């Protein structure tokens, strides 16, 4: 139930943000800001859609686990 609320909230949030932020950036010709804004907001909305519609979202912590797995032995020796 809660997921549906958050799903709607995510889309509403990005819609409202676009409505208020985009015109001022286009008027002031801040195209770099515009590109970064759109990339971040698309990432956020996409992740929110994935998470709140019940799909599995790739977890950034897993990636770091894989990167640091060669050091696992060193850390284990520190724990004893």
């Amino acid at each position, binding site marked *: 139930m*809660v997921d549906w609320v*958050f799903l709607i909230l*995510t889309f509403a*949030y*990005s819609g409202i*943000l676009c409505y208020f*932020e985009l015109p001022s*950036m286009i008027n002031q010709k*801040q195209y*770099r*800001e515009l590109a*970064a*804004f759109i990339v*971040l*907001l698309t*990432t*956020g*909305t996409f*992740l*929110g859609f994935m*998470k709140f519609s019940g799909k599995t*979202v790739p*977890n*950034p*912590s897993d990636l*770091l*686990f894989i990167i*640091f*797995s060669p*050091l*696992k032995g*060193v*850390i284990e020796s*520190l*724990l004893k």
Partner: protein
Amino acid sequence: MGKTKITNRQLCFITLGVSLGGSVLVVSALMASIAKQDAWLGAIAAVVFGFPVIWILVFLGRRFPDKNYIECLQSVWGRPVGTVMAVLSMNLWITLSYHISWYVGDFMTSQSMPETPAYVINLVFIAAVAVAVRYGLETISRAFEIFILISASLFLIATVLILPNAKIENLQPVLENGLPAVFKSAFFMSAFVTYPVYTIMMVYPTETDDLKAAGKNMLTGYLFSSIISFLAIILSILVLGWQITANTRYPAFRLAKEIELGVVFTRIEFIIFFSWILTQFIINTMLFYSAVKGIAQLFRLKDHKKLVLPFALVVFVLSGVVFPDVFYQENWIVFVWAPYAFIHGFVIPLLTIILYFVRGGKKKFSNSHVS
């Protein structure tokens, strides 16, 4: 060139907040599980080791007075390698800004509001952080001055109230497990208290006024936060004993539950809770600020504030994804966070300072900051 934005006193408090942030409630369990009753010695070792690390940052700031961390890395390492270094460092800020939100949500749901979904708490918390960053650095650093004072005084009240329950037998026998265990625990303590301090390199040389005094203030802030972390660890062991400390998720909070003031004042532990939420807010705001500022810097944007609100959405969604459960989180902070923070908070600044001297030191770089 850039105008002064924060005073040295505020810089001291920001350092205190950033350094205290993640540690005070979480780290004592990990330390007690390694060094047993000697964890407090490990805390002292970590603090002493931390001063040279902070000094490296202070030194870099003095040599590059009008560059923030990202520009500093780019000018020492050269643009391509420096950019890679900067992206790596920024990745830690981004990662940590949703981790801290996860901690707040988890703490609330596991200790006080078990039926509320964690996302609702994260939503309120991240909304506050995003609004704070949107208001700008001057506003947040003035707010931190007040927050730190509230937080520190609440912590001191809790410390005084808990003292009657302390049992000195819990510390004995001293050094039963030998010095190596102490230094091993100090390594993990540093990962929480010392290494995250490099976050304020986005603020320190460029936004402060008096450079010499600013470095001193950073060290003072670090000293205060170390004292508080040390007190939290030694009191947990004195009152609870190391077995309970090692097996509790939030030992400092468990500790405050031991406070008894008759029947009139119950649930005194929520003063620790309140104090902790304030420090979490400070560190999360600084991480969020540094991450957004870093992204803006890297893509050469003029206005970083436009990115705050979309970035808040990413942080919000990931704050519920990042740790599926508690066991995952406990493994993560041991096996990933400790080396991860070590590399970014110690190895990269150290290599930067070595490279700075190898490439010619003051002579080569002194004319570069004019441009």
